[in-house]
């Protein structure tokens, strides 16, 4: 244990730097701040899916005890530069985000149409119930399957023929159709909700007429800051966004939502700080979701296992006012050797709220269809699906025709197959049993771009030898601060307990949103850069010392270890970082560095993270009960900075994948356009009893082309490919192929 605190910090399963705060309740989440004179806001949602407000009667609400204001489109303050944006903001989706209280139009059910502000939460809740609304109802379209013929190419693709969402043909279009050995299957995933433990919440505080502070649940403090500054036409530096702790988000903090603006409007109107926290039911309608999607895969292969063609089509749901798109078909274009690949992507606008990226966005949906189709194809040719994948493994990117920066997927597959005991699997379904239960094994592969953005980190080395770093990234749960401390400890030769990494405030140097599995590559590179500069500065200080023992020192001939600098050749002479500063009469040494990916390298190499998931399931032949009894998730995610938090990401993703496969799915009553599953009793996220022992394994080989720490992202690949692994295992157990998620006992019963 002791060696965490010395050299070689990277990779060690160090405890989270904020673990203690989190488990003791000391960590403060946005809704937990108490400001003097704070008021409480509650949103009123529409009860129709499409139409307009005919009348809104707020008298009783306004007269209710403690009520300070009831705001709606007729009396709301107009937001001068209303521009709500998604972050990351480029490329901008077509359409316009929902602007709250702007007019009487209703675009989806439970759209926020009024906000009630009162001196206590209970009084605001009560008054919200007294607001009476009448509507001009228009016919709504919410049923995906009934409206599927109205799916369209996204506007971004229409406008730009080179855009990646356009139809893609490699080789011959739809070549599978004329092949003798082929499959053609349709797959459906329902709308799924992020449902992080922490409800979306914001405290809005106008400190002056043009000075706004928000304590906000968001994955992007800088993006949020920019959006609100534009909304209100005030200087960016006048907006302060605090998100020190975020209790999970999975993507639904990657957009500024109507409730945030509603709280800011309310705070302006009542001239008091206003707290607004969504209810759990509102989490299903107001902060995005993984869109309902239909997919079709056609595939052909030769008898000896060479894929000859793949066609993959997908249609994803979006709202009527904003086009949400995701890269559902990416994995199909680059994962396998197939000479003929066709992909077609469409979106279907419905009278529902806009989706947002949810863990493994797009790829998790696409991988469900692709990796199930691969399993189906393997059955057609009578081949082990692992062998089938190995035969079709590609050593370069067939889409971009570029070498991979790194790819160790084969190693990951071998590790995983060994660990789960793939040899126990029989090709023929239903052959393995445990008592009455049918046992099956399945696998699925996942990939996600090894993204990296631009980030800035400020580091201050104090004369007591401690280092404080700051950057405006967030931590929605992966353990960002912990990883950054380890990277700095490794690069600077300083014990981790002497390092603090501060995040979650727009006052710090800019970093992008936490999304797309890019934080460690992005911010970690800036930490790496700042440490290199600190080392250089310390080197020139010791080299220029009056005490000549370090004469001629260079970064290369010095050793930085345990907070000391010494000459590698004669380590007896050493100086602590603090003493170096003291000799220079410096109270502290401050360095700010920015780091961006090398664009030219990104044109020479194709960069992806990879995962492969293996599942063992048991299915009861009479009752259709399903148990996942073992799971192994393996990742090629470059250097692993912290074995514990990285493993935690993988396990969390696997549990999310169990949810996709077996339990999660929204159900809407299309007569009303309202969800009938909108609490955690009816919308089933997996619980402990659904999660077996999950082993996470890492290849742990660096990708130094991607970034100097050699990391690639983990968060998304942890879930991408899990659902098909489970679906395939269920087929292997039962011979029943369920192509519509979630796979529940009734579906198994009825095929």
């Amino acid at each position, binding site marked *: 244990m002791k060696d965490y605190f010395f050299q070689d910090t990277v990779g060690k399963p160090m405890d989270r730097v904020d673990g203690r705060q989190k488990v003791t309740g000391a960590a403060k989440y946005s809704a937990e701040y108490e400001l003097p004179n704070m008021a409480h806001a509650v949103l009123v949602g529409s009860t129709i899916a499409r139409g307009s407000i005919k009348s809104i009667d707020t008298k009783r609400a306004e007269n209710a005890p403690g009520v300070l204001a009831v705001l709606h489109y007729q009396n709301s303050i107009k937001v001068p530069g209303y521009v709500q944006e998604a972050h990351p903001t480029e490329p901008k989706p077509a359409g316009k985000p929902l602007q709250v209280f702007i007019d009487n139009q209703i675009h989806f059910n439970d759209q926020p149409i009024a906000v009630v502000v009162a001196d206590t939460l209970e009084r605001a809740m009560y008054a919200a119930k007294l607001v009476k609304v009448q509507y001009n109802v228009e016919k709504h379209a919410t049923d995906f399957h009934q409206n599927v013929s109205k799916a369209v190419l996204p506007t971004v693709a229409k406008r730009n023929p080179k855009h990646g969402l356009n139809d893609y043909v490699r080789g011959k279009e739809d070549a599978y159709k004329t092949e003798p050995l082929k499959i053609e299957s349709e797959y459906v995933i329902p709308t799924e909700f992020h449902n992080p433990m922490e409800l979306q919440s914001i405290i809005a505080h106008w400190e002056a007429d043009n000075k706004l502070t928000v304590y906000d649940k968001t994955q992007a403090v800088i993006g949020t800051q920019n959006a609100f500054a534009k909304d209100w036409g005030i200087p960016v530096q006048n907006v302060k966004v605090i998100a020190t702790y975020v209790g999970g988000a999975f993507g639904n903090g990657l957009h500024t939502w109507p409730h945030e603006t509603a709280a800011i409007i309310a705070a302006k109107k009542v001239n008091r700080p206003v707290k607004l926290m969504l209810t759990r039911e509102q989490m299903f309608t107001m902060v995005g979701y993984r869109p309902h999607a239909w997919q079709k895969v056609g595939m052909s292969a030769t008898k000896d296992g060479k894929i000859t063609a793949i066609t993959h089509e997908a249609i994803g749901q979006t709202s009527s006012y904003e086009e949400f798109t995701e890269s559902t078909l990416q994995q199909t274009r680059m994962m396998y050797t197939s000479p003929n690949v066709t992909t077609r992507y469409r979106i279907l606008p419905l009278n529902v709220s806009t989706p947002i990226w949810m863990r493994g966005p797009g790829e998790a949906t696409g991988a469900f269809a692709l990796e199930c189709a691969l399993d189906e194809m393997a059955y057609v040719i009578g081949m082990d699906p692992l062998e089938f994948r190995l035969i079709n493994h590609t050593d370069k990117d067939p889409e971009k025709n570029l070498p991979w920066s790194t790819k160790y997927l084969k190693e990951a597959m071998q590790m995983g197959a060994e660990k789960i005991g793939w040899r126990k699997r029989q090709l023929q379904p239903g052959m393995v049993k445990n008592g009455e239960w049918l046992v099956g094994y399945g696998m699925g592969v996942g990939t996600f771009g090894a993204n990296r953005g631009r980030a800035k980190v400020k580091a201050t080395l104090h004369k007591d030898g401690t280092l404080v770093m700051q950057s405006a990234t967030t931590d929605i749960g992966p353990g960002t601060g912990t990883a950054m401390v380890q990277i700095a400890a490794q690069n600077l030769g300083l014990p981790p307990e002497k390092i603090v990494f501060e995040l979650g405030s727009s006052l710090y140097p800019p970093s992008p949103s936490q999304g797309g599995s890019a934080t460690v590559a992005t911010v970690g590179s800036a930490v790496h850069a700042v440490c290199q500069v600190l080392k250089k500065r310390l080197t020139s200080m010791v080299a220029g010392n009056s005490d000549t023992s370090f004469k001629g020192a260079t970064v290369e001939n010095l050793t930085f270890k345990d907070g000391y600098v010494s000459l590698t050749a004669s380590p007896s002479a050493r100086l602590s970082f603090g003493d170096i500063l003291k000799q220079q009469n410096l109270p502290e040494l401050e360095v700010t560095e920015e780091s961006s990916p090398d664009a030219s390298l990104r044109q020479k190499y194709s960069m992806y993270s990879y995962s492969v998931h293996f599942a063992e399931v048991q299915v009861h032949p009479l009752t259709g009960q399903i148990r996942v009894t073992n799971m192994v998730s393996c990742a090629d995610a470059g250097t692993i900075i912290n074995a514990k938090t990285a493993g935690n990401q993988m396990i969390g993703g696997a549990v999310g994948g169990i949810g996709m496969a077996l339990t999660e799915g929204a*159900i809407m009553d299309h*007569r*009303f356009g309202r969800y*009938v599953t909108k*609490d955690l009793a*009816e919308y089933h996220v997996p619980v402990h009893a659904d999660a077996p022992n999950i082993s996470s394994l890492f290849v742990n080989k660096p990708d130094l082309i991607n970034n100097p720490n050699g990391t690639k992202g983990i968060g998304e690949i942890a879930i991408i490919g899990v659902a098909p692994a489970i679906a395939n295992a269920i087929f292997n157990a039962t011979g029943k192929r369920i192509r519509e998620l979630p796979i529940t006992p009734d579906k198994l*019963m009825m095929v």
Partner: protein
Amino acid sequence: MIPFQYVKPSKPKAAIDTVAKDQTAMFIAGGTNLVDLMKRDVLNPEKLVDINKLPLRKIERENGTVRIGALALNGAVAEDKLVLEKHPLLSQALNAGASAQLRNMATVGGNMMQRVRCPYYYDTAMPCNKREPGTGCSAIEGYNRMHAIFGHSDKCIAVNPSDMNVALVALDAVVLVSGPKGDRKIPFGEFHRLPGDTPHIHTNLQQGELIMAVDVPENPYTKNVHYLKVRDRNSYAFALVSVAAALDLDGSNIKSARLAMGGVAHKPWRLQEAEQFLAGKPANEATFRQAAEVAMRGAKAFEHNQFKLKLGPNTIVQALKNAAGAV
């Protein structure tokens, strides 16, 4: 949620009088159902009478029955030595319900009285006869996957969601009630109702009547019992279908049996004809399958719950197999 008064009496009589006199008053025990319903504006009591100070928590042996106080916690009953020894079926059913956290708040009385989980009942923006008589039943032509296959009416097709109730009806429990007009005993099978034309009347308990205890008579079903619950996830989900099965075996012959189903009707569904069929027959899969067919007579499903017609009998067979094999 509306503003409400809150009182916490320490004598049953005071609690009963308060609720009997005031139509807008309700008892609250663990609050795990009532508070949710208040937050969703489905129930709006103007007065809450907290009964947690009343001395109704004991589990004791009383004249050949196990008497369980109305305030005994679901978790405590499930783990109770006497219950485990005399009525292991009840313990299994309780442990199949909700989650450990909920079981440590939920009371036996509250569990009996919990409302249906029909999503339309919980959303005031959609019609529901049970919540607002005369507005119509949204489930009949809507989302009815979780709904009844027995005893439904054209006014309501919701099911009683409790697991505990299924075991209690199988075990011939008796409910001890105290009310403004005195005490009475209600056989468990008559406590809950079918929806008929009055789905807004949830049980046969009258305003102001307080459940004091439940008596579960001692019986031979202490060994070969099984509560099998099929659900969408392995814990913390209501039953798609559940079966409480109890056998009194003489070697491999069935002397007598008890059988009840959950998730299929507006009340816990006792299967007496199937029980009679089982008596005197050999305990094997063929017998169980025939009993299941008897049990399913008269079942009628809707658009999304057709699967219950198949899952129901299969679950009966499996529960009986597990009961017969249990030691």
